[in-house]
């Protein structure tokens, strides 16, 4: 039977409605009838006065294997010396490249969480970056995906903690300039430490380059009245010169 145009439109509308209902429905209750906390909304980095218990532990340097750590320290020192000379070494940001997972969780721009029953999206305001975390699906293997900025993330609620597993991050998408192998695995544990302060405990495992798992925790505060703004690199006047130094293009408009 050939569906009429109206029938097709109605079916398409119903399919979209069903998808949105599934995506946006509140997360299902667990076996004990408890619903997970609702993280939907805007968030920004939270930095309370020193000693405040909502501050996470201080950030640790990457526990790289000795040879890699030595190289990392040399690069850090070179970057600091270049900054002191007023000739900063160009980075991905110079070219308006988004920073990917997990750097996009470090701020300084706010992000938005949109939490549903089957999926949770995190949109970082800077560069309009969105990562998607799927619930109720097994993690894929590297054979199933291509490496990228955000990888492939699956999540599950363990009580009040959202545990997210991410693989598939591209080689040069680096957190704190630490090298990693294609097999890097990132486990994040999101939990509310107060009703309006969220922690993301990020643990990076990569035995090929790290001596031991590397954990960094970021804290965020809720921004109840803030709607995420768009961010498009509409006119990037920064560039890397022939020596890899970040510069600013200065020209008088015609």
């Amino acid at each position, binding site marked *: 039977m050939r569906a009429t145009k109206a029938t097709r439109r109605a079916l398409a509308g119903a399919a979209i409605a069903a998808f949105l209902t599934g995506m946006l429905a509140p997360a299902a209750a667990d076996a004990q009838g408890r619903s997970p906390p609702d993280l939907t909304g805007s968030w920004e980095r939270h930095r309370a006065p020193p000693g405040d218990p909502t501050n996470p532990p201080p950030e640790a340097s990457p526990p790289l294997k000795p040879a890699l750590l030595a190289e990392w320290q040399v690069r*850090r020192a070179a*970057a*600091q*010396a*270049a*900054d*002191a*000379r*007023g*000739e*900063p070494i160009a*980075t991905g*940001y110079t070219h*308006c490249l988004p920073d990917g997972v997990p750097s996009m969780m*470090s701020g*300084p*721009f706010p992000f938005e969480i949109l939490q549903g029953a089957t999926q949770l999206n995190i949109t970082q*305001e*800077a560069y309009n970056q969105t990562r998607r975390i799927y619930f109720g699906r097994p993690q894929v293997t590297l054979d199933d995906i291509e490496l990228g900025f955000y990888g492939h993330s699956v999540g599950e609620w363990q009580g009040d903690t959202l545990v997210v597993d991410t693989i598939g991050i591209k080689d040069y998408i680096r957190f*704190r300039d630490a090298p990693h192998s294609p097999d890097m695995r990132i486990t994040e544990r999101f939990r509310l430490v107060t009703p309006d302060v969220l922690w993301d405990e990020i643990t990076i495992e990569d035995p090929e380059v790290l001596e031991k798992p590397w954990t960094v925790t970021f804290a965020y505060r809720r921004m109840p009245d*803030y709607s995420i*703004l768009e*961010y*498009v*690199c*509409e*006119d*990037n*006047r*920064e560039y890397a010169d022939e020596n890899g130094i*970040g*510069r*600013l293009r*200065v*020209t*008088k*408009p015609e």
Partner: protein
Amino acid sequence: MSQYLRRIAAVLLLLVVPLAAWAHHSFAIFDHSRTITLKGTVLSFQWTNPHGYLELDVAEGPEGIDHFTVELTSINMLRRAGWKSSDVHDGDEVTAVIAPLLNGEHGGLLLELKVPDGRTLVPPVPAITSFKRTP
């Protein structure tokens, strides 16, 4: 500025850099040891990312500068700090306090802007106090 002062400024910058080392944007290309003040006419006020820009035809300022490109922060940061794209209009007479580019080109980072309605607008530059104000 003497070599001595420049060296002290470089050392001070080295001390603040570790805090800002992972920032989106390096402010190291701008002089942290002095500011210049330019009075002039706005040729254009560009409300864009990754940075806003003010193109200024200079009437009063250091000798030899007739046009200057003024970089602002990301417009998202400006908006969160209360700025609007309508705060500055083409043709406005403004006074800008600027951390100039270290390489001597006619560009710099906006630290303060006096607009015709009398307001002094301050952009949300991270670690803005690390830029030393000079007459």
